[in-house]
């Protein structure tokens, strides 16, 4: 028996069931909360980011140094009065890239860039019968656009590939509101009144409400016509390898081209800031959880060790060294926390499933029309593991140290 400390510790775990259960429950609740709370929130945030990132280019080059960003569906747009917004923009908008091929040539060797797609994008109206709706009209080259965004995967009916000059692809919500389906004809009108009659060839659903209600896709040529842009485009969408490098790459492109460059991170700054704020709050919550778990461990161990004083005395009289006595109790605590971690992990999974059930029965969230997939956050599961071990060591170390320091004579007589 090389590690008799562990042998004694494990026997204490199995023999002092009451203490073991109290400590295990305390730690496993802590572990479950530490995993559960971030998991459901991060699932939600990740989903939001995934959907936002998937449906817009990671980076967009536009010409105009205009702070009003509207080429991506923003939440501002979702909440604000859309018509008013459109009117204001009609006057201020004038963004075109005359020779987008040159710009593409200029930046194509920049590191991180995976694909590029020129497009035109402005606000306009989609009309079917008596229904008239404001929309982001995006004129694209479908073969290029599908390399930059995931729109192709979001098509639920019809197609986007091979989008012709007389075709249009609508978001599911907009299609519903217009009562339009594949094969129906709709009219789009640009900000300067130019309009065009198009056939609906595809319907998409990104799961992101702002997109599904306001985004429509037409062929680049059609967009150029109704926006009266000639052969110019007003944006180039870019897909990069590491999406979290978007700000750096955008900065580099800005320097290189002198054009206005936006990244998805800036577009979604609100969500990203919210996530960071949330992570900060989580640190605080975790601290409270750990603190309460730790204090229960400490108090249970103080009682346990007090009740074992005589035994500790006899162990020391038999030659057990101080560090061994300490190791007995610390490894008892650590063994308990390992058991508690596994229980807590299962508990967290149950809580996540339960929560997912509640959300699923609602069928939608504030920003998304589809429910995110709630997954356990591996990051926080790993964190919880180290938290639980670290906390139990910390919480048991003071009582264990007291045990180790017991004077055997006093302990035996006491």
């Amino acid at each position, binding site marked *: *028996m*090389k590690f*008799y400390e562990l*042998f*004694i510790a494990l*026997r*204490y775990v199995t*023999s*002092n069931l009451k203490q073991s259960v109290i400590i295990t429950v305390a730690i496993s609740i802590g572990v479950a909360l530490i995993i559960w709370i971030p998991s459901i929130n991060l699932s939600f945030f990740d989903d939001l980011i995934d959907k936002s990132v998937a449906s817009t280019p990671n980076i967009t080059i536009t010409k105009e140094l205009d702070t009003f960003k509207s080429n991506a569906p923003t939440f501002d747009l979702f909440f604000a009065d859309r018509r008013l917004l459109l009117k204001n923009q009609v006057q201020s908008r004038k963004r075109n890239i005359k020779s987008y091929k040159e710009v593409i040539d200029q930046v194509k060797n920049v590191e991180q860039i995976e694909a590029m797609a020129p497009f035109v994008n402005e606000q306009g109206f989609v009309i079917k019968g008596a229904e008239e709706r404001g929309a982001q009209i995006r004129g694209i080259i479908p073969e290029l656009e599908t390399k930059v965004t995931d729109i192709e995967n979001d098509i639920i009916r019809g197609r986007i590939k091979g989008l012709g000059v007389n075709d249009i692809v609508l978001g599911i919500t907009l299609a519903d509101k217009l009562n339009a389906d594949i094969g129906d004809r709709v009219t789009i009108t640009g900000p300067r009144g130019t309009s065009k009659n198009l056939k609906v060839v595809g319907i998409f659903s990104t799961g992101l409400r702002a997109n599904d209600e306001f985004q429509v896709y037409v062929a680049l040529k059609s967009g150029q016509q109704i926006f009266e842009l000639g052969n110019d485009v007003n944006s180039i969408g870019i897909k990069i390898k590491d999406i979290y490098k978007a700000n750096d790459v955008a900065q580099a492109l800005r320097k290189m081209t002198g054009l206005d460059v936006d990244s998805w991170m800036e577009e979604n700054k609100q969500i990203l800031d919210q996530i960071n704020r949330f992570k900060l709050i989580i640190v605080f919550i975790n601290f409270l959880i750990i603190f309460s778990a730790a204090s229960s461990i400490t108090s249970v161990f103080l009682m346990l060790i007090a009740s074992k004083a*005589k*035994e500790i*005395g*006899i*162990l*020391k*009289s*038999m*030659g*057990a*060294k*101080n560090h*061994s006595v300490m190791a007995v109790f610390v490894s008892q605590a650590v063994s308990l926390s390992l058991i508690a971690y596994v229980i807590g992990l299962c508990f967290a999974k149950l809580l996540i499933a339960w929560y997912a059930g509640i959300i699923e029965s609602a069928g939608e969230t504030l920003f998304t029309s589809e429910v995110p997939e709630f997954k356990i956050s591996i990051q926080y599961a790993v964190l919880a593991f180290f938290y639980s071990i670290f906390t139990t060591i910390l919480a048991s170390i003071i009582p264990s140290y007291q045990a180790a320091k017991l004077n*055997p*004579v006093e302990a*035996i*007589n006491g």
Partner: protein
Amino acid sequence: MANIPENILLKLENINRTYAGAQPVYALKNINLTICKGEFLTIVGPSGSGKSTMMNVLGLLDAPTSGHLYYLGQETSKWNEKRKAEFRNREIGFIFQAHLLLPEFTALENVLMPSFISRKTNKEQKNRAKEILIHVGLGDKFYSKPAQLSGGQNQRVAIARSLMNNPSVIFADEPTGALDQKTSMDIYNLFRKINAEVGMTFIIVTHERDLAQKADRVIEIVDGNIVRDERHV
């Protein structure tokens, strides 16, 4: 140090143990004593006379306030806790009035505890533990927990445990104080038997005078002083 003969197990020179406080207690006063290997010795004296203090000092559980304690020729006052712990594990067995067994462990595991602590437990050690348990009359109680055994049986387990690492000396502080007369006698005879068989030194505190008188040597302590030290042959 060099001139302490081989057969001397323990030598005390001017040992004092004073418990500090508002009213200091002089529990041991200038004790001089030599104990040889293989002796069977009892310590008697009234309650509060310093017997337990003496046992704890001799057993390296407590340090004297002044004086020198030699063990097998070595002066112990400079030893650190770790060295004392190792020495206790190897050379000293303790038996207290309460058996102080670990209630979560079987009799066999309790007996093996000193060998666990020395991290040398193997098949041989396990067999030895069983042999000792058989020797103390608990051949059928290997796997019983302390709660399943009587007071006398538990004290036998404690005795077996003290013997486990084959120490040079056993300190027993009122080992039969909690037991009935018949059981006390049995245990006393067990000590004698082990002493006779393996020559292990026994130092036993008892207030049962007739038991004490059967020892080879009786030391009487009164008020921290040795007032009698007689040998029976």
